[in-house]
Structures are given as structure tokens and as C-alpha cells.
């Protein structure tokens, strides 16, 4: 049994978000972090590893510098890393990204007992789309919003959160599960893990290595192959100093609510 954990390096949006004049994100000026939900997916994988001794592979697509992030996940307990990196993959939307990751996992092989874990969503795009799209491209079942995974013989029982409760879903591997932060508390790195992480393998796959995979069709990857395009990105009007609402308590409250309704905030 092998668990692939899909992780993403994202800009740290807890600090100031820097925006270029043209409205795109100034990534260079921002720190990068491992997407928070992905730690929960990794912890879920490591918990299954503690139980079954399975192999855990951290998978990411990004620049070569993302290797550092994979080392951190190895220090946390992953056995190895897979870095999918290439100019041809740049600018991919969620559809194209899922094709590439699905292609790379197929390249390494997805066996009967294998599981793919993802975080629920990444804090930069907030789409929550890549996980389900990988599952579809690999033709395997998915469970999203998972808050618990229990392995029973050859099936997994997954607690899937709903807005007003949860459902328990039984699924048989190979399958893909996206994990929410309520699922667990990610473990800390150990000194031993940090010392060992540089001796464990990280495989780098570029377009050349993957181009014979049927899913890696040059027409459906990268910026050009992506079905969606950014038509325009822009900044909302500057916050400025805000608006003071005056008048009686009721007048101020009414003015506030009409603003909230206009902004669709309530």
C-alpha cells in the first residue's frame, strides 16, 4: 500500500499580500509556506503509515525550489518526494494541473491498495478542484471534506463533513480523499527526521519524462491547454480609512445594513 499526498507551496497570505500594478500577485515578495490543509492530509497519511507500515510519497507540482518543502515533509515522516516541474506545465489551471498530477501518479503506478490524499483546498486559489479532478482523470472514487479516515480490512470508512453534520462513506482503494483541518493535529518534525530527510529520495519528473503518458497531452496542459483563462484580475477599491456612519443608532444601523446587502456580505 502506498499513499500519495498531494501538497502545494503557497504564498503566506497571513501577512501582507503584495499585488503588482497590473493586478497580479507579487509572489516574489512573499514568503512561501506549505498549504495548511496539506499538513492535515500528510498527518492522515502518516497515521495510516503508523498503523500499516505503508509507503508515503509527497507529491507536488511547482518550481525546482519546491524541493525544500518536500524535504520538510520527509522530515515529518514521508518516505520520499515527487516533484513535477517543467516550463510546459506553467500557467496550468485546475483542470490542466490535475491532468499532469494524474499523469505523474500513473507514471509511478497506482496499485489496488493505494490512496491519494489532498488538503481540502489551497489558500491561494481556494478552489478545492484539483483533488476531485485528479480522481476523475484516474477514474477512481473520491471523498471530499474528510474529517476522519478509518481503515477496516480493505475498505476505508470516511467521515465526510456536510454544512449541517456529516455522512459516513465507505470507499475502496484506490481512491482519493481530501482532508479538512478538523481531521487531526499535524505532528512536529523530529530531530531524527530532519537529520534523515536529506538522505531520502526526491524524484523530479519533467515534461520529457512524462510526455508518453496518455494524460500528458500537450493540448490540455499548461497555460495554452487550460480550459479557463484569467480575463482580468483587479484589486477591489482600497480600504482607505473606512466609512464612519453617523446619525442616530437606528440610522447608523440601517445605513450599515444597506451597505452589507449591497456588498452581498449578508
Amino acid at each position, binding site marked *: 500500500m502506498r499513499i500519495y499526498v498531494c501538497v502545494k507551496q503557497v504564498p503566506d497570505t497571513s501577512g501582507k499580500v503584495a499585488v503588482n500594478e497590473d493586478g497580479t500577485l507579487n509572489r516574489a515578495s512573499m514568503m512561501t509556506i506549505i498549504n495548511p490543509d496539506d499538513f492535515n492530509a500528510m498527518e492522515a497519511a502518516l497515521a495510516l503509515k503508523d498503523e500499516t507500515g505503508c509507503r508515503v510519497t509527497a507529491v507536488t507540482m511547482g518550481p525546482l525550489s519546491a524541493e525544500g518543502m518536500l524535504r520538510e515533509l520527509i522530515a515529518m515522516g514521508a518516505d520520499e518526494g515527487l516533484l513535477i516541474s517543467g516550463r510546459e506545465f506553467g500557467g496550468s489551471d485546475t483542470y490542466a494541473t490535475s491532468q499532469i498530477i494524474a499523469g505523474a501518479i500513473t507514471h509511478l503506478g497506482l496499485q489496488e491498495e493505494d490512496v491519494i490524499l489532498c488538503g481540502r483546498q489551497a489558500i491561494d486559489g481556494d478552489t478545492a478542484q484539483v483533488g476531485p479532478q485528479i480522481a476523475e482523470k484516474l477514474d477512481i472514487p473520491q471523498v471530499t471534506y474528510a474529517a476522519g479516515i478509518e481503515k477496516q480490512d480493505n475498505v476505508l470508512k470516511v467521515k465526510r463533513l456536510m454544512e449541517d453534520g*456529516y455522512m459516513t462513506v465507505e470507499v475502496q482503494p484506490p481512491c482519493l480523499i481530501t482532508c479538512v483541518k478538523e481531521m487531526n493535529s499535524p505532528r512536529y518534525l523530529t530531530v531524527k527526521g530532519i537529520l534523515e530527510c536529506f538522505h531520502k529520495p526526491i524524484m523530479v519528473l519533467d515534461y520529457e519524462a512524462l510526455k508518453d503518458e496518455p494524460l500528458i497531452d500537450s493540448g490540455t496542459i499548461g497555460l495554452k491547454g487550460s480550459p479557463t483563462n484569467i480575463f*482580468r484580475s*483587479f484589486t477591489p477599491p482600497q480600504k482607505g480609512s473606512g466609512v464612519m456612519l453617523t446619525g442616530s443608532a437606528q440610522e447608523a444601523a440601517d445605513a450599515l445594513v444597506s451597505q452589507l446587502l449591497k456588498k452581498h456580505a449578508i
Partner: protein
Amino acid sequence: MVFNSAAVGEFHDIWVFCEQREGKLLNTDFELISEGRKLADERGAKLMGVLLGSEVTGLAKELGGYGADKIIVCDAPELAVYTTDAYTKVLCDVVMEKQPEVLLIGASHIGRDLGPRCAARLHTGLTADCTHLDIDMDKYVDFLRESSTVDVDAVNFKMEDTNLKMTRPAFGGHLMATIICPRFRPCMSTVRPGVMKKGEFNQEYADNCEIELYPVSLTAEELKTKVLEVVKEAKQVVDLIGAEVIVSIGRGISKDVELGISLANELAEALGNGVVGGSRAAIDAGWLGSDCQIGQTGKTVHPKIYVTLGISGAIQHKAGMQDAELIIAVDKNDAAPIFEVADYGICGDLFQVVPAMIAAVRKGKE
């Protein structure tokens, strides 16, 4: 199998996936049908709803009352409870046969599971959690004029463009992006619940709404997951970090602590299932438990709406909340630093202002 070999021009009509749970429609359905009506009119197209479930045909007419020309009903026992496998298969079957131009799905825990799976199967684009939609370029330009810093008069827009323009926030609202899907159809979007305005119900529309029963074809091999149980839960313990609405209290409630807390709770509830947090002063005074503290030494939160009641806004507190999408501050001191980060400030006695806010919010939501 790549479905999308047909020319973009062969796809017609605006569709809304209508979600039901336990045989009840969701509010999002009416919001999306109302928004879909607007888009269909912009496009000169028909608006169709597609409703999946078990014994749900009776729900269809109500959707018509909000402007749907037709509801396509897929009724089968296997569709009683949502499963990715069954819903994806059935929805994709209908879409492939009838070829809609646009497909909108509510961004619920179900919609955000179903949407990407279908988009990947249909080989088309999907934009997540949209908050604004336009087809007419005129209307889009007006929207930009009002909601962005773009100098729209300096941009040469292609006014004849009929792609659905899907706008959504990114990075906690620091940036907005408008996405299009020009080469493939249907153009798909999940839409944030509560954002689109629900229109008026019209009985005549409901009576004229056509209903089509679409045959469901599912085999046992296609259903790979099994739902063992569905559990409803009462509200969970206070989750400040995940909360969309937070009302925070500070030293300013000291005049009547009990009333202050209950007003905060009531306002949080009225604004939308919100929770109550507090500044360090409120926690140190023992008015709230330490897990409710927001700020440098407490929690950092990113709700959609953050309201402060009687919090002056020390840097310590601001560090934990200034990235909220929308900040509303109520304090009696008009020089309080909290007003520097607030989008809206009301200077006054919170014991008078908050009851007025609660009443206004309830009225506004009707």
C-alpha cells in the same frame, strides 16, 4: 473520451444544477435560478434547472416560480442521498445529450464535490466559488467601474464578447479575478451561497414551467462508494478560526457584561451563524474562556465579517483580525484606533447601537 469535440456554438441555454437534501430544495437553488434568469435574458437563451433525487418531481414547479423555463428531473432511488459517482454520471449524461452553454452549481459541500468531477469528465473549465457573473460586456464594464480600481474608459473591451465572465475573490479578497472559458462548453461555475439575490416567486411562471423527466441510467459498477449513514449535528463548539462571522467584545461592555455578551451572540446569529470572540481585556476579566481570545497571543481569524463591540483596537488585537474581509467597529470613542482598520465604524453607545443593528439585519434579510 473527450466530450467537448462539438463546436462552442452548438451549445445553448443556461442551466442550473438544483440541489435538494432529503427532498427539500436549498435557498441557493432559488438564488441561482434567479441569477440564471438574468443571464438567460442577457444571452437571449432559455433557463433550465436540472434536479436530481428520489421522488422529487413535485419540487420542480417551485423552481419555475423563480424564472426557470423548464426543469429536467432525474428521478431514481439511487439519487436519494448524494454520492459523487451517481450524481456525476447522471448530470454528465444529461449535459452531454443536451449541450448547455452554461452550467451553474451552488458552492455547497456537495456542489464543490460534484462540480470539479463533472468538469473533468466533460473536458471543460470550472471556476470555483464565484461571487459575480456577467454575460453582457456592458454590464461587466459597469461592474468593474463600481467594484474595481480599473480605469475602464482606458480599456478597449470587445463589446460583442458573449463568454460568461465569472468573478471571484482570491487571497482572502485582496485580489479579484474574472475568469472565462472561451474554448469549451458548458462554461461551468460554482457560486457562493448567499451572494446572488433570490427573486420574487411568481405563480404564473411556476404554472408555465415545463417539466421533463429524464431517464436515469446507472449500473452497480458505476457506484463505487456507499453512504453508510447521514448524521445531522447541532452547532459545534466555538470555532473561531473557521467562522465566517465573528462578533468580538471588549472592555466597552463592562457596564452590563451579561447583556453585552447576549447582544453579541444575538448579532452573530443574525448576521449568519456567527460566533463570539473577545479581546484580551474581555478574556482577562473572565467574561469569555481563553479559547475565545483573538489577537497576537490569541487566535488569528479571517472571517468574512468581523464586528467589534467596545474594543479600542490595540495593535495586539488588530494583529489577529485585520485580514477579515469586512470589519465593522462599534465604540463610544471616535478616536479609537479600531476605526483605522474598520470598513464601517459607528461611534456610539453599543447598548443602543447593537439592538438597532440586530433589528436592521433581520429586516434586511427578509
